[in-house]
């Protein structure tokens, strides 16, 4: 009552809820504040881990964890039911897709480092196989194949950053073509073109560079 009244019609249309750092970060990031982007990335990255971990904490079923579902879960957790505007949502998913890729590549890198390391750590790599990642034909383990994918992506990113972002959104975040377009601020036609060519590009790169065994 002590608060100055705003006309109801307006308060009906503009709800106020200040408990949302994500929106602010997204917007600052969109406005060119790269710190905000990094911060958001760290937040999403942490959440992705926390959620994945709690999902898998123990005793879960045998089903494979669906990365897209996981990203969605993170989205819901961080944004609540109120959700974000279309544009912010797309940005958010793009960040989450990047975080997913990052988690995978970090893991692959670390495992490979261990592989090159001492005998003691080689044991843990064997354990990985015990954990259920099958070796596929030709001797390339999924880990090798994943690493090759990451290397190819980095190469693509190096020479053509934008299509690499498109791949991230589509491949790791499960974003639709319109969402990807919104997230990256480019047209749908461009997304389609980039996506088509980038797929061919990656396929060629991965065909050419058979599993590295360093």
């Amino acid at each position, binding site marked *: 009552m*002590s608060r100055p*009244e705003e006309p*109801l019609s307006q308060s009906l*249309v503009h*709800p106020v*809820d*200040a408990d949302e*750092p994500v*929106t*602010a*970060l997204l*917007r*600052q990031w969109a406005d060119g504040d790269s710190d905000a982007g990094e*911060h958001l990335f*760290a*937040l999403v*990255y*942490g*959440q992705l*881990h*926390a959620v*994945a*971990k*709690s*999902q*898998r*904490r123990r*005793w*879960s*079923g*045998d089903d*494979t*964890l669906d*990365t897209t579902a996981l990203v969605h879960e993170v989205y*819901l*957790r961080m944004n609540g*039911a*109120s*959700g974000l505007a279309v544009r912010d949502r797309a940005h958010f998913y793009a960040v989450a897709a990047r975080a997913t890729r990052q988690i*995978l590549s970090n*893991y692959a890198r670390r495992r490979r*480092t261990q592989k090159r*390391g001492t005998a003691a750590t080689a044991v843990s790599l064997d354990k990985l196989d015990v954990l259920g*990642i099958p070796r596929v034909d030709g001797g390339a383990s*999924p880990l090798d194949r994943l690493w090759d994918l990451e290397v*190819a992506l*980095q*190469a693509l990113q*190096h*020479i*053509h950053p934008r*299509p690499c972002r498109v791949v991230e959104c589509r*491949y790791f975040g499960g974003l639709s073509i319109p969402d990807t377009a919104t997230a990256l601020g480019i047209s749908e036609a461009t997304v389609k*073109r980039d996506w*088509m*060519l980038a797929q*061919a590009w990656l396929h*060629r*790169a*991965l065909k050419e560079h058979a599993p590295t065994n360093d």
Partner: protein
Amino acid sequence: MTDPHADSSQSSTAEWERLSTLFEAAQSLPPESREQYLDAVCAANPKLRAELEALLASAGDAPAFLQDLAANVVAPVFDRVVSAEAELETGDIVAPIPRTGTRIRHYDVGQRIGGGGMGVVYRARDTRLDRDVALKFLSHARFADDAARRQLVREAQAVSALDDPNVCSMYAIEDTDDGGICLVMAYCAGGTLRDRLRGSLLSIDAAVRITTQVASGLACAHRSGIVHRDLKPANIGFADRDVAKILDFGVAARTIGHATTGVPTLAGTLPYMAPEVLRGESPDTRADVWALGVMLYELLTGRRPFVGPTDASVLYAILEQQPAPLERFDGAAIPAPIAQLITDLLQKAPSSRPADGSAVLARLEELQQFERDIASTSRDDEGNSPGNSAINSASNAVGNATRNLAPTRTRAWTPGAISMAVAALAVVTTISLWSYSHRSRVATVAATSLEVARTTAPLPTIAVLPFAIQGESTLNYLREGMVDLLTPAFDATGLVRGVDPNAVIGADIRPANARAGNARLDSTLAHEWGARVGASRYVVGSVVRTGSTLTLRATLYAASGEERGRSQVVIPNASDISLGVDGLVRQLVSTELRAPGDTLSALAASTTRSSGALRAYLDGERELRDARPAAAVAYFQQAVASDSMFALAWYRLARAAKWSEVDSLNRAALERAFALAPTLPPRLQSIVRAYHAVRLGSPRNAERVLRQLVADYPNDVEAWMLLGELLYETNPYAGRSSDEATSVFRTVMRLDPRNREVTVYLMELAARADRAGELDTLFTMYFSPNSAGEQPGIRRTYLALHARRIVNPGSQQTTRAASAQRADAQRADAKRAEAQRANAQLDDPATALIALRRVGADARDLVAAKAFARSASSPSAPAAARLEGLLSLASLFVAEGQIDSAMVAWRLAQQRDSGSVLVAQTLAALAPDSPVPQDSLPALHQRLLRYVASYPSEGMPLGNAALSLADQTAVLHYLVGVLSIRMNDQGTVASSARQLAKGAGRSTLASTLAQALRGHQALAQRQFAEASTALAAGMVDVPARVRMLVPALQQQVDRVALAEALRGLGRNEEAAAWRASLRDGPAVWSAPYLGRSRN
């Protein structure tokens, strides 16, 4: 890393654009024209052409190739990243800043050796002191986080204060070149205890020795006022082969006296968390003592004491169940003193446990002293070697001494307790036994052979052999009659296929019949017959008559002749034989399957003859289990369409309709089930009648019936569930605590760990009581991406309402720090954000309504409620939703004291239902400290009187037409009466009372409300005793369904008045309970009555 493509292309963005344009164009051409096209466009650029050709060649298979990569590499590896992390308990497995090979100060960083909750640990070489150390860095995600850094420093300070051989030494804190810090600690060359447990089972001696060391370290920490809070095998390291050290004080807290300081946050690892921690209390040294107990148990048995198929069942096992029996796989007996110690460590009440590490250490040392004493005597006696047998023989020899150790607590491991624990274990190991229709789910525990058969092959077969009849020749027809009755009954369970033995061995049965007379079937002959029928199971049984009572007994055998289960049913007379058959089948099937409790599916089979209906029914049950009530409604509707007399399906339809919030369907189906109830077995009749009473009749009767049912059938999941719901809904109107409902729902969860509806209730209760740990666990379980299904509305409701309550130690601090840092920017941003978010409300009014109806009294909830109400009342929403939304919004505004805003909402609502608005305004005016200006009361009073006078001829019926006209009239007269008391208009009060008395014949509500009105009158005259009696009398008798329809029937006015009357009588505690009851349950309408603490 090297870039393998650096030489193949130096494309700029422009070049990519060109490439992609050409690529797209070429792709759109038929293959035969591409050559020509490329010739034309790449004439001057052979390199471009080569690249395009290569890309075009790759293009066809590219999507399939990447999809394959996604399915076979990306997804599984990601899955493993996460699960390996869980498996290894190493926390943050990812080290985005690889440190290996770098040099920090005088440390050469080596391999990464693990990660704690917030840090990453590397092995390193201290080049000055020439020794190995462990360096702990902040993990990447926490790197920039000041709170995390402070925490790391706090950890260092905590540990450096400890000087004990069994606590990992802290050497230093160093700054790193990138602006971070790292802790320098002793290096544990011998790996962690988790590593050792992964190998073979530890010997009893080793388990005790290690636990003693940990206890010693813990004693030191506790003496210094530090609680570890995350004690577990992964946090015990070995400096060499033998010395155990406690690691990772990352979440440790300081204590003052017993209690830890600061805000209790949820920390730790679920299986090791003490009950009080899960309840959200501040953990103290005794939480560590508990964790030590869990560890000792695990070291001894290789298993944890509290296990379950889901996090929630682990949680409730910890909270409520006895540990699983203490048994080793190698068969070695665990000495009684050790078992006793574990029992003491795992006492649910902290006060019953040893107080701290020192107390545990004392116990352990005592124990080892015995061991040494006895070992030396036995060596004297027979030159025995020390080892496992030492403690064993010790325990046998010192049986009496054991009792001296803990004279008062031998009771907990009595056979009774153990069998309880066995029962608990049985529940736990039968994850999906009844969920046979979960086609997608694979049982993850060792299954019984029958279950394996069920999932991998056609149904196992079962043959019922002729029964022996004793005591009455007139019952001889049952000899083969039982075969005829039981065979289809087994069939109908859908779990086994009944085989009629007559088809195969009929020729032998008859002569044998004559020969054997009524004697019991010889077991050899039974086995032989069973084998000849070729069934994988056979049943042998008998019928015994005493007076009119029949006792039916049956034994289930595997084809091998091995007994698998027995059952016995007593029926009052022969005409109840179908009941008996039903009971036998259920008992036998559930013995074999070890069903978690009686579920309705088993009973369904016997109550419909239509196999199509049964199939649909079972599909409906599956959908309910997977939390898809809407889909369940469709299946149950299909079931009753196939068999309109299928009472059980009608009943379940009513239940599913309630859960999907289709009130009208709930009522119609329930009426139908109620009408058909006499066709059901007595127990189901009681269930249906009880539910009818809960929803449409008297809750008090319902409670009586249900209490009786659960007393008779303690495993009846449905009866427990109904009881829980009843208490949940009516306790606020009975001045009783919602804890009663909580404990009943937990019983349901224990009997049926996969029951998802109960999860919803438990979540709500946990949220209301701020039991963050429980809420988080339930939430995770309910909404896990692995779970088969979900209801988006419920999911979003819970996210919106409760996600912020869930204490997630991994992320919360980050979030907090972020919000603190950004707070200023946020405020500046608020206006812009506000405008943009207008489009981003809960997009679906139906979902918003579900959420709105579940809002609790917590301030955070009420803020959220306003957003929901706005969504529900958006102009595009269905009229009913819009009305409820607007009225809710008004109620919330009233609660905030914003009467003008409330008026606007009421005005908008008035166009739709002026009566409901009047009712709402009256309720608002009657609230204590109402912001409705007192001088507007006469006008309101006049309008209400005019409305009632013209009702219902001119006024529209109130809100929901489902409320009968007589009931609606009663509600209006009651409100007029109460408001008139407030206005001191005695004449109108009297006439309202007369009207209510007149309506008593036509409306069940009228007499209840008349009572309440008398109570208000008495209170106005300060006749407290009379007031309290009158007000309490009718309160609980309003049926739940009706209460939902009119906000006034939530009786806030009455409860406030009752509290006042009780206070007048000096019964302050009861008064407080009634006041508190306003905070229990949906809070939108109670909000104005909660009292304003806002500014």
